[in-house]
Structures are given as structure tokens and as C-alpha cells.
């Protein structure tokens, strides 16, 4: 058995791969600690991997950490040292927290899982991203991997050629501190949203902006592509992320774009500053699409590949994928369901597997979208009193429960789901979702505002079967798999009724999910379609600010804390009392 681990700098997680190259189990630390964006050493995740799969330390051949800790540390220090004394605070912080950085992962293993520290190896950060994505690709040979994130352990973007899983040659890199990911985060910060969390909001906000506005053009000029050196260029005077622990942008950016947004002031379409901020978001989005296009073009030029793996935090920018898919040299783009750092645990585990000599025939199976195993402890036993006191069970039998849920949805109700295993990535794909009739405006509005308290400029995503999607949206074969994990938006067909759906964004796009055969939502659709419902609005099951629900207790808690009344679970359909 092989374990891959991420943590310290970004969200932590742990993955388990077996000797046959199958991803057996995967947890994000935030799912278990309930602290969104938890980046501490993933002790809960590793413990759960071991417990749930009945493993002892001796059963683990190798553990891989997803990056080279000292490299990450030194690159940041080296860059900051060039800007003393301005960067002195950052440097002091780096040195003082040395023992809390990933450099201490060896010690943490020794402390929490005695014996595992001796089995520890290290992968490259971008290699971990690449291997994660490779796992989700059907073909494992002759591919090109594009990784674009904030900062890995030595670069902020890279292109490598995959000959086969044992030969992955890096051909291009973007050196720190030039970084498309950190640029996007700085704009996120400027717009008053939390870094690593608010990027989605910037993407949503951008749809309200105008590319030809002054603000958008100013942002658009902050970075560029130099076609002689084939490198990203950036005017670093506007950014402080490489010099400071607290500021990602400099005062010069405020001089350029006007004052930053107070994070506590609501941003509502029509308000005075709304358009300026939307235009800024638009500029950031335009620049991202432009630079990604340049990187992919360069990737094609140096690898001649037409099949691409795409990962890193920037690959979560689902609004840019549709444009990339239209590049003339692209036959396929694969994005893993968890393209950010949390997903790297999967790649790190595969790194152990490939590096080991335990296989006779190297085989990396494509992981499922729902790899996190269920509680070994009996959830039914644990929640019996909670359910008895606070809920009534409407239907126990699975088939009846699904049918009843479908009837409730068709009558305009919102339903929460806690079904089977949990999703890999940051997006709920039906097993931990809040769903309602995707064409019913009132129901979607109720889901968005009454239950979810989502920003008014972020649309809810629609989920449907492939046959339905074809009727309404311009699908692209190159990114077919992306639709299954909500990794790409698509345009509504011209003059199509879908333009009026409440799940369609102001710019006529939707971040659709095509449900996989035999998934929970697929089962639900077989009850829904006879009732005339072919599209569900699908949002993650959580209170805003919290991680997505992981187990049944979390689901019951969301029901108790919000106006959500129904929960479809493995124990049946529950209704909250009072």
C-alpha cells in the first residue's frame, strides 16, 4: 500500500493507492476537521486511511510528500532576500516558522505515526499535480501536462512531456515570483474575497464586467506574454505577495485601480462600486484566458502534443476551459476533479507506486469521482437518537426514498443529499449536494438565498444527463470528461430556452455537470424524468464558510442550522421536525 500526503502550504489531504495501482481511499483534512482550507499536517486523514482500510504502519510500503519542502522554503527566502529591507517581515516570519513549515513533515510523521517517517520520500510539486491528472486520463502515454498554480516548490507553472509514467520530462517553467495563480489571488484579495476561497467569486463577478472598460484594460496590462523568450512577464511593482505576509498587492495597485473593497461590505449588482469591481474581475479573467492560451500554444509547440493534462489551482478557473478547448491543436484536455493542491495527494501516492518495484505490469486505474470511503463505524447507530428526536423518516427503502425525493423536488422543494461515498474535489457532484428543480426559478432562488446565502452574482450549477445537455448547451468533445466533474463552463445554444434557465449566468454560460451513469444523481433522474424534470440545480451541501459535509452527522447539522427540511440519505429520506 502507498500513501500520498499534502499539507502545510495549501489544503492538506491523504490518499491511498494499492499494489494494483488503484486509488483505494482519499480524504481532505478539512472534511474531517471541519475547518475549511485546513492545511495542517493531515493526521486525521492518514489515521482514517489506516483505520478504515484496516492497515497497520507495517502494511505501508512508502509514503510520499507531494513536494520538496526545502526547495519551497528556499525559493521564497531567496526572492524575499533580494528586496530587503521591505521584505524583512516576511523573512522573519519564514525563519521563525521554519519548524511549522513543510520542512517539519518528517518530524510530524515521527510524532503522529511512528515508523512512517522512515518510509517517507518526496515528489516534485508539479510532478504530483501531473501524476494526479494522469490517473484520470484513459491514455497514459504521449501526453503533455500543463500545470499552472500559485507557487509549487520551484516554479509557478510548467509544461512537461509524458512519454510514459516513468518518463516525464519537464520542458518549460515559469519562475517564481512571476505567477498567474498569485496574480489571480491578489486580485481576489483586492476585491475583498478570501484568497484560496474567493477565486470562484471573482470568476462569477467577471461575467458582469465589460472587457472594454477602463478598469478591465488596466488589469489586462498587469501581465503579458513575451513571445521571444516564451515567458510570462509581470509588472511586479503592483504586487507584494513575494514581499509580505499580509499584503498580496501593493498600494500602487490601489493607485491604479482605485481603493480596494472592504470585505464586509455587501457586493450587490446595481450598487455604486459594483461595476468597477466587476470590470476589474473581468480584466483578471480576460488576462487569465489570454495567458493560458499562450501557455497551451507554447506547450503544443514544444511537445507537438494534442492531448493535454491540465492541473494546478488555475485549472479550477472553469470559465477559461471552454476557450482552451477551441484552440485548433487541442484534441483533449483532462482536468482532475481536484486540480488544486489537495488533489496532489493522489499523484504523490501514485509516485510511490510507480517508484516501487512491486508491480510486474504498471497499471494506473482511473479513480472514481467518489473515492472517500464511508465510516466504518455504524452511522446508523450513532445518529439514531439524533434522528429520532429531530427528524422523521419519511421513507426507509432506497427506491421509495428516491421516488419521494423526486416528488418533493417536482413540487419545488430543496433537498440535501448525503449518499454513499464522498466526492474527491471541491465540487459537490450529487453525493453531498443541495438540489432542486433547475428550471424552477423560485426553488433555485430559495436554494441560493434562503438556504445557502450565496453571493447574488454567483449562479448555481445545473446537473443533468448527457442527452439533456446536448439539447441545451454547446458541448465540446475535447473536454467531455470535464463536464462530469463540473470543471468547465459551456455556452447555451444560440436562441435556446436554456438562456432563460435560473442556472444560466448573465453571460449565457452555465457550469454544467453531466451525471455519470449509475451515480446517485443518475438514479434520481430515473425517478425525476418521468415527472418532467430533466435538470437539477446543484450546490454543495454546507453552510457558507464551512467545508462540504462529509458524513451523515454533518448533513443533519446543516439541516438543523438552516431552513433545509429534507435530507436524502442511505438511511432513507429524512424530514426535519418543526
Amino acid at each position, binding site marked *: 500500500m502507498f500513501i500520498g500526503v499534502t499539507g502545510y502550504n495549501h489544503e492538506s489531504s491523504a490518499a491511498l493507492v494499492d499494489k494494483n495501482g488503484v486509488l483505494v481511499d482519499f480524504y481532505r483534512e478539512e472534511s474531517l476537521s*471541519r*475547518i475549511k*482550507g485546513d*492545511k495542517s*499536517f493531515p*493526521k*486525521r486523514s492518514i489515521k482514517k486511511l489506516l483505520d478504515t482500510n484496516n492497515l497497520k504502519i507495517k502494511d505501508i510500503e512508502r509514503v*510520499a510528500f507531494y513536494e*520538496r*519542502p526545502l*526547495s519551497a522554503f*528556499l*525559493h521564497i*527566502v*531567496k526572492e524575499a*532576500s*533580494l528586496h*530587503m529591507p521591505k*521584505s*524583512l517581515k516576511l*523573512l*522573519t516570519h*519564514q525563519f521563525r516558522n521554519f519548524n511549522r513549515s513543510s520542512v517539519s513533515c518528517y518530524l510530524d510523521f515521527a510524532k503522529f505515526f511512528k515508523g512512517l517517517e522512515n518510509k517517507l*520520500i*518526496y*515528489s*516534485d510539486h508539479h*510532478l504530483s499535480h501531473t501524476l494526479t491528472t494522469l490517473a484520470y486520463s484513459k491514455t497514459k502515454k504521449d501526453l503533455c501536462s500543463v500545470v499552472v498554480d500559485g507557487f509549487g516548490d*520551484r*516554479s509557478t507553472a510548467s509544461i512537461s512531456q509524458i512519454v510514459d*509514467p516513468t*518518463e*516525464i*520530462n*519537464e520542458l*518549460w*517553467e515559469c519562475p517564481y515570483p512571476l505567477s498567474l495563480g498569485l496574480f489571480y489571488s491578489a486580485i481576489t484579495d483586492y476585491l475583498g474575497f*478570501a484568497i484560496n*476561497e474567493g477565486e470562484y467569486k471573482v470568476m462569477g463577478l467577471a461575467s458582469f464586467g465589460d472587457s472594454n472598460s477602463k478598469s478591465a484594460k488596466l488589469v489586462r496590462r498587469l501581465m503579458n506574454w513575451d513571445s521571444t523568450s516564451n515567458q510570462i512577464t509581470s509588472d511586479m511593482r503592483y504586487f507584494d505577495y513575494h514581499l509580505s505576509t*499580509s499584503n498580496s498587492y501593493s498600494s500602487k495597485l490601489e493607485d491604479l485601480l482605485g*481603493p*480596494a473593497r*472592504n*470585505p*464586509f*461590505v455587501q457586493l450587490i449588482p446595481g450598487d455604486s462600486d459594483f461595476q468597477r469591481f466587476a470590470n476589474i474581475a473581468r480584466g483578471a479573467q480576460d488576462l487569465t484566458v489570454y495567458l493560458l492560451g499562450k501557455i497551451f500554444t507554447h506547450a503544443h509547440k514544444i511537445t507537438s502534443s494534442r492531448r493535454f493534462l491540465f492541473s494546478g489551482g488555475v485549472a479550477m478557473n472553469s470559465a477559461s476551459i471552454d476557450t482552451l478547448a477551441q484552440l485548433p491543436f487541442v484534441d483533449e484536455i483532462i482536468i482532475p476533479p481536484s486540480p488544486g493542491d489537495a488533489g496532489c495527494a493522489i499523484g504523490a501516492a501514485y*509516485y510511490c507506486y510507480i517508484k516501487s518495484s512491486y508491480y510486474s505490469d504498471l497499471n494506473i486505474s482511473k479513480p472514481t469521482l467518489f473515492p472517500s470511503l464511508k465510516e466504518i463505524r455504524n452511522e446508523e447507530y*450513532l445518529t439514531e*437518537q*439524533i434522528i429520532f*428526536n429531530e427528524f422523521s423518516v419519511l421513507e426507509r427503502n432506497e427506491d421509495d426514498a428516491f421516488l419521494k425525493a423526486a416528488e418533493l423536488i417536482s413540487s419545488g422543494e430543496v433537498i440535501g443529499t448525503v449518499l454513499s461515498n464522498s466526492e474527491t474535489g471541491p465540487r459537490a457532484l450529487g453525493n453531498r449536494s443541495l438540489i432542486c428543480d433547475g428550471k424552477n426559478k423560485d426553488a433555485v432562488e430559495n436554494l441560493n438565498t434562503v438556504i445557502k446565502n450565496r453571493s447574488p452574482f454567483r449562479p448555481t450549477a445545473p446537473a443533468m444527463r448527457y442527452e439533456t445537455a446536448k439539447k441545451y448547451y454547446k458541448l465540446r468533445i475535447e473536454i467531455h470528461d470535464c463536464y462530469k466533474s463540473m470543471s468547465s463552463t459551456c455556452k447555451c445554444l444560440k436562441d435556446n430556452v436554456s438562456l432563460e434557465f435560473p442556472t444560466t449566468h448573465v453571460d449565457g454560460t452555465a457550469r454544467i455537470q453531466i451525471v455519470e451513469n449509475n451515480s446517485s444523481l443518475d438514479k434520481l433522474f430515473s425517478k425525476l424524468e418521468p415527472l418532467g424534470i430533466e435538470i437539477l440545480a446543484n450546490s454543495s451541501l454546507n*453552510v457558507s*464558510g464551512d467545508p462540504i459535509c462529509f*458524513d451523515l*452527522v*454533518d448533513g*443533519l*447539522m446543516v439541516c*438543523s*442550522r438552516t431552513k433545509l427540511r429534507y435530507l436524502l440519505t442511505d438511511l432513507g429520506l429524512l424530514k426535519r421536525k418543526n
Partner: protein
Amino acid sequence: MKKTKSELPIFYETAHAELASALEMLAACKGTNSQNQALGYFMHAKDEYNHARFFFNMLSKRGNLASTEIARDFRFTPPSLLTKGYISNKGFLIDTMKLKDFIAFVYTNELLAKSSFENILNLVGCSTEEGKIISSIMKEELRHHGMAKKHFLSHYPALQPWQLMIYRTRETINNKGRKIYDANLKLLDQLLTPLYRAMAFLAGTIAKKLNLNEFRRKGKNLMNISSFSIL
């Protein structure tokens, strides 16, 4: 404006503390073997989540009035529950404490929470809308305290109420000790900052000369690089 500035940290920290209690109770709910206790912890967690929500709303109101520069410092990001020590890096209390100590901890801390809310109540005024909410939260904390006490005595009948008093005194002293320790640490930090900076300056001067180009990956097979190197 000045009032807002002084209130912001209070609501910011209290919201942290309440959310941390919610997570502790949720963890206790998932960790217990008793169905009744699971229900008890579940309801307790729900209350604490509600308390946290109220304090986040109050924080938000004040943040709204503050300048962007100040408001930015009070934007909540969940991982700060860990970095600020509201949740221990070692794990949740239920996982790291003996059950008896855990219940005693809840018992005393609910009471301490209640008394810290008294100060906040004075700040916002009893008769204001916020004051009323805080009063109701205080009642709930008292109820939690009572529940923990009942639970403690029914599970450890050999223990007498006066023994709980000892727990309480101990926890109060610990709490005070923590505050003094915190204050000392802050003072020490202030004294040492110039030293740290000087060291960072020195290290930075050395780091400037570092050549990291050697560790570039361009043109290399990433699968062939030693898997034992941390650089």
C-alpha cells in the same frame, strides 16, 4: 469609529471561540459511543454554531463601518482557528483528553464563557437588539454548564460537587495562567523582534547569494530525480 476599532477584535476573537466550541462539540458527537451523548453533543454543537453566527454578524456590522484597511485585518479565515490556538494542533479535546477531564473542561468553560459575555453585554448595552441576543446566549451557556454538571455527576457519582469546584478553580487558574503566559509571550516577542529581524537580515544577506538554478528541472526526467532529496 474609535469604538468600532476597539470592538472589532472582541467580536473577532469571540466568534473564533464560539466556532471552535461548535467544532469541539461536533467532534465529541462523532467520537462518542453513546447514542444519548451523541444527541447531547449534537444539540450543544448546534447552539455553539448559532452563537458563532451571531458574533460573526456583529463583527460584520462593525467591519462594515471600519476603513477597508482595518476591516481587512478582521476578515475571518477558518485556518486561523488553528494558528490562533482555538483548536489545538494536536487534535480535538475529545481525542486528546480523558472523557472525565473533557466534561469537566466543558463544565468550567461554559461558565467562563458566560462571564466573558457579561463584559461584551456591557459594551453593547443590555437593552439593544444585540444585547438581547447576547443575554439569550448567556442563558444557553448556563444551560450547557448545567448539563455538563448533571452529566458529570451522573457518570461519576463518587465525585462530589465540591470536587467539581476544584476542577473549576483549576481551570480558572489555568485560564488566568494562559492569559499571563500569553501576555508574557507577547512582551517577549516585542523584545525579541529586533533580534529576529537582525537574524533574518543576516540570513537574507546569505540567501541572496544562493544559487537555486542548479535545482532547475528543465530538460530533466522528473521521475529520475532522487526521491529522498528535500531540495
